[in-house]
């Protein structure tokens, strides 16, 4: 019974394509996040949503657009993919304190 799930787990695509990564949490949390782990292994926050509203938007190209249809879902859509977008993307959720619970990650490879 997965708490935070992401699909797909692996995504291989060509430069210039548009792709989406889906995230769902069944924990009843109000806040959800997207993180990027780059080749240097740093985990950096990209977006934070609270109850479907954008709270944090770090310096992320506007090719990345998060979409939250309801508070259990936070999807990440990426337009015009570039080589530098290759990374592992993690979704997370939080119950209202600083603790965040992470999904298994989506490894994106842009060729």
């Amino acid at each position: 019974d997965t708490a935070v799930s992401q699909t797909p787990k692996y995504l291989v695509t060509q430069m210039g394509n548009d792709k989406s990564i889906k995230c769902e949490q069944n924990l009843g949390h109000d806040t959800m996040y997207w993180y990027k782990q780059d080749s240097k292994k740093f985990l950096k926050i990209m977006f934070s949503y609270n109850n479907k509203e954008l709270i944090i938007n770090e310096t992320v190209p506007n090719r990345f657009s998060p979409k939250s249809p309801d508070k259990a879902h936070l999807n990440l859509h990426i337009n015009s993919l570039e080589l530098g977008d290759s990374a592992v993307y993690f979704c997370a959720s939080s119950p209202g304190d600083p603790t965040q619970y992470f999904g298994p990650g989506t490894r994106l490879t842009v060729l």
Partner: protein
Amino acid sequence: DQQVKQNSPSLSVQEGRISILNCDYTNSMFDYFLWYKKYPAEGPTFLISISSIKDKNEDGRFTVFLNKSAKHLSLHIVPSQPGDSAVYFCAAGPGGSQGNLIFGKGTKLSVKP
């Protein structure tokens, strides 16, 4: 500019001994500190946390110590087990669910049988 630093990329410990993982931070506004454990091909798993009003928090084999004056925290694992072998991330934030968590680069712990 790394606000959260884990200066040891790796640590090797014998089973049964103590593992000590260290973390330094620069931002005195950080109010909450967390440790996460990560296995390959999985997401980080929350391990233990501490707020800035405490200097120690213990949960079973895991203890986190916070030294605010030195801007330093450490995670102690006693006794270490082979299943503890993973990458450990230190994270810090301002408190509340809507603040940014800043992560360190991680320390890879290997516990040898």
